[in-house]
């Protein structure tokens, strides 16, 4: 408890001898801080590890390890608590990219060992359904709709399709209900995110543009034509403030947008000194934003002025005593190589994990000073 409050120590977990690009929170489990990490090893064996963070001991324990047939390029876990064991991965067979729906059997029941005793023996994933196949580099992954958990989007560079899942006892069936090609000529999709405020709305990065698509009609709802000068790497919706999104891209920047006002960014920050590979809002406190970059850094940002709780313009205290409302809270220098994934814990508002290409997962806390500034 003290360790967690102090937040001084850093917990890390190393995938044994593996490169890795995929880290997601176990979305369905909102009681425990669990993450799923998948390895990306072209020529070796690949694994998917389910990690649990023990706040009391400040340790990361591998709860369950699954063998995965191929290198994992993308992963999504089911946000529905009753299907917390479901996971979609996109993997390369060496010649093409495939996507499957898996069940991580036994994860829900598994309890974390008190101390880390090394990775447990490998288990097998149950394949429930295969979704699609695409040429190498084409398939970007699956995005699970948190509001309607039976709905997912399969995102390829040149195609976006809406798929409805139906879960049977041993297998699931999938049905594609709608699809669309990139609406901008010569550009391809790069990332997507469901809008938590509008169940049918999907935010998509397409080239340097930021779009929102109404999935019922597959028509464009909003367009930010020049969101970034290069490829958009990630989109995330503000969890508390409709229409406000952030995007990050290969032009090193994180930008905050109000989709209804696409001409100007609300805020633009040069976040990293090379690609900003991902950025996401804290699930509860939307003034906190996490980003990762290929400059080996994970950064925690404060974006209070564009959050749902903007700093009060107080007549008595015209100067913010703690400095500016927006800015860098902390840069975490725990990684030695490019960081491709960051994720907030699904269970705890102040814990997040990051993963670098060399397979090192680091779990960190929001600095207490920042935490108390938000809470008090």
């Amino acid at each position, binding site marked *: 408890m003290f360790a967690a409050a102090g937040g001084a120590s850093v917990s890390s977990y190393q995938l044994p001898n593996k490169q890795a690009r995929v880290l997601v929170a176990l979305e369905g489990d909102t009681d425990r801080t669990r993450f799923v990490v998948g390895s990306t090893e072209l020529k070796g064996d690949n694994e998917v590890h389910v990690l649990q963070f023990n706040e009391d001991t400040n340790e990361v324990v591998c709860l369950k390890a699954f063998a995965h047939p191929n290198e994992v390029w993308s992963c999504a876990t089911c946000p529905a608590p009753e299907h917390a064991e479901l996971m979609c991965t996109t993997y*390369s067979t060496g010649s093409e990219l495939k996507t499957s729906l898996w069940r991580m059997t036994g994860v829900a029941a598994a309890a974390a060992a008190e101390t880390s005793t090394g990775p447990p023996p490998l288990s097998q994933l149950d394949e429930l359904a295969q979704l699609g196949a695409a040429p190498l*580099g084409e398939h970007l992954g699956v995005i699970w709709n948190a509001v309607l958990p039976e709905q997912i989007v399969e995102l390829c560079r040149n195609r976006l399709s809406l798929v409805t899942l139906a879960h049977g006892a041993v297998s699931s069936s999938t049905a594609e209900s709608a699809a669309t090609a990139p609406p901008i000529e010569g550009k391809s999709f790069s990332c997507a995110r469901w809008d938590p405020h509008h169940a049918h709305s999907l935010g998509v990065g397409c080239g340097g543009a930021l779009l929102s698509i109404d999935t019922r009609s597959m028509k464009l709802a909003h367009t930010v034509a020049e969101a970034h000068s290069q490829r958009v790497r990630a989109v995330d919706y503000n969890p508390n403030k409709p229409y406000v999104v952030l995007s990050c891209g*290969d032009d090193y920047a994180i930008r905050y947008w109000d989709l209804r006002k696409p001409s100007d960014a609300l805020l633009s920050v040069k976040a990293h000194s*090379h690609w900003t590979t991902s950025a996401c809002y804290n699930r509860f406190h939307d003034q906190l934003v996490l980003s990762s970059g290929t400059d*080996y850094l994970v950064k925690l940002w404060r974006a209070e002025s564009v959050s749902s709780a903007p700093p009060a313009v107080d007549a008595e205290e015209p100067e913010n005593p703690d400095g500016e409302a927006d800015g860098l809270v902390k840069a975490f220098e725990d990684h030695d*190589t490019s960081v491709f994934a960051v994720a907030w814990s699904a269970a705890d508002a102040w814990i997040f994990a990051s993963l670098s290409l060399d397979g090192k997962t680091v779990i960190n806390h929001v600095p207490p000073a920042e935490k108390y500034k938000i809470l008090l």
Partner: protein
Amino acid sequence: MASGGGRVRAASLLSSYYGYQEEAKETTTNEEDDMNIDSSAFTVDKYVGTMLQYKSLEELVHRGNAMVSEIKSLDSDMQMLVYENYNKFISATDTIRKMKHRVEDMESQMIELEKNMGTISSASESVDSSLSARRGQLEKLNGAKKNLTKLQFLMDLPARLQRCVRDEQFETAVDDFRKARRILRAVGNVSSFRGIEDEATLIIKRLAQVLSVRIQQPALQLAELGLTTRLLLQLGGNEAVLLREYLGRRRRALHDVLTTFPPAGVAETGSGGEDNAPVDNASTAAPAAAEEEEGELSAAAGDVARLGEAFVPQLLELLAEWQERFVGETPEPVLPDAAGAAAPSLTIEAKESMILDALQELTGSYIEVCRRRLQEDNVDPSSLLQGVRKLVGALDEVHALVPQAKIMQRATRAAETLAKRAMDSLLQQLQDKLSAQVKDMQGATNSASLQEQLHEAGKAISAHVLDALTATAPLLVPMCKLLNLRADGMAKHLVGRLYAALLGLAKTARESRATADSVLVRAGLCLHMVATGVAQVPAMLKAQLAPHGLGGAALGFDSASMTREMQASADALLERFVEMQAQKLSLEVTQRMQAQNWLKCPPPRDVNLLVDRIVRELRGMQGLVAQVLPGEPIRSMMTQGPFSSARSSVQLNLVQRRESSQQPASSSAIQKDLQRMFARKISLSAAAGKPSVTSMLTHVAKLTLKTLVEEVRLGTFGREGFQQIQLDCAFLRWVLPSNVDDEGAVLALLDEAIISCQERCIDPAAFEHADMEPFCEAKRKQLASMLG
């Protein structure tokens, strides 16, 4: 005792007569010294004893001789004195004898004089008594004549009054009536006189009515207004009401002057007709202002002057009339019944405050009108100065008359605001010009002219600043002298605004721009300002201010911090330029890496065109940046070294390892350790310190190669794809290091690209180093000929 005291007194008298006082005083100071031979306390025994005891024989003899001679000279002095005294005594006796003889003569003459005087006085008495009877008669006659004249005056009064009223000689009428009233009051008990009085009063009352009507007429002449008011006052009108009415009318009249004066049409046509006039004036302004007076005034100053000519005399006249007619002792009201209780006469203080109020209000609006005229946009500083001079000159007289109205202070304050405002607008213009200058600087259309363009821009900026300073010159010292203001406050204001204007330049430069070229040009401009531009400003300021003793204010221009600002802007712009360049190249790398199917591609035949692009882009950038950051040797882009020197140790290790072991699984752990050893953490953030061509080039190269590494890590490669990457990297290894200052980082990134590529390769079979040489050599030649 008594004889002793008398002797002392006689001695002191004598000594004062003979001038011995000084010595006497001296002796009194050391009265007590019994060793002083001149003092009264002198004791012979002690003196002689001491002498005998302490002095040698020779000295004693010497002293004895000296004493003898002193005694001799004292004796002869004494004799002289006695002789002189005797002489004087004899002459005094003679004189007294002569006086006695003459006084006896005088007495007889005096007695004769007394006798004569007695005769004169008796004669005069007899003349007086003989004339006194006639005089009484004359006096009586005189009195009768006076009474008759008065009577005549009274009898004539009604007729005369009527005549005066008819001839509109109201003043005479009122005057007469007042005189008559005094007499009538004395003789009021006689009925015939009462008839006259009633008649006259009636006429005067009618006259008062006429006057009241008359004062209401709007068309009444101003001169008559004062007169009429005064008459009404004499006739017992309500003083407060009347005076207020009077002042009100006068004020209205003056306001009319003011409102109708700046003849909108005239002003418009004035400035519109001679459109170039303000400009011309500006150019001739300095000498004209120096020559002063009567030279052609600018339109605005002319207006102000004309307005002053029209307004101020009237104001002065009002003041004079007021003083003359109303401030003196209140004339006795002539119509007692009309005066009544309703007319409490005003105190002098009240009147004074009334006129002061009016004056302040009027001059206030006068100043306001002038201010508005001078505030118009086309009024340049010198004509503003002229205008203010006219304004102050016009008000000077009023101020001298009524200093307590504080008119001058108001004018001064208005003028000061005007001057500040003019200065502000001039410097705003400067800032706008500077901003426009910055905005005009597009990217180099012709790269050779970049430096020239920068030079031109720098010169233009200096010229603009100088222009602004010259333009504000009349606002500074002459204006302050005119207004008795402290010029250094104004100078400080100027310096502050100038600083702000230049800061605006730095800010404008930093505004985001679309193209990398224009960013670079702006950075160049900022650097130019750092190098020369900023330093010129204090010099220019000093040149303008120092002759007037305001050199101190010029020091207020913080050129160090301005340089810092400019440098900061330049740094930020250079950083942005680097970033833009890097992103441009990165984008090309990304596009090229994603466009190719690396799994199935033909065996490498040539170094990829992408490499061409990178090298050429870096070269172009080198050329551009070198113009902005002059004074740095440009390294030759094309390496001259032998290809073999570019051989990478990592590469060799890896290649050998591949050859020796064919099982990837077993060797992968060792390979990874090896990788980690070489894949050192390379800082990608901009290098701190002074930007240089090479450091900027290095940064762009690093970021581009980093993109290459990351893109390679995303791909999946077949054997030929890997070999192509290997070839490209080998060429870059050969070419790049000589152009960057962080060779290690660049090589490490290239190694990492190859390692990553090998990792992402299904069938990694490396090129032999020697096999790559012909390709690289060919490309080098091709590029060398292309780049010159």
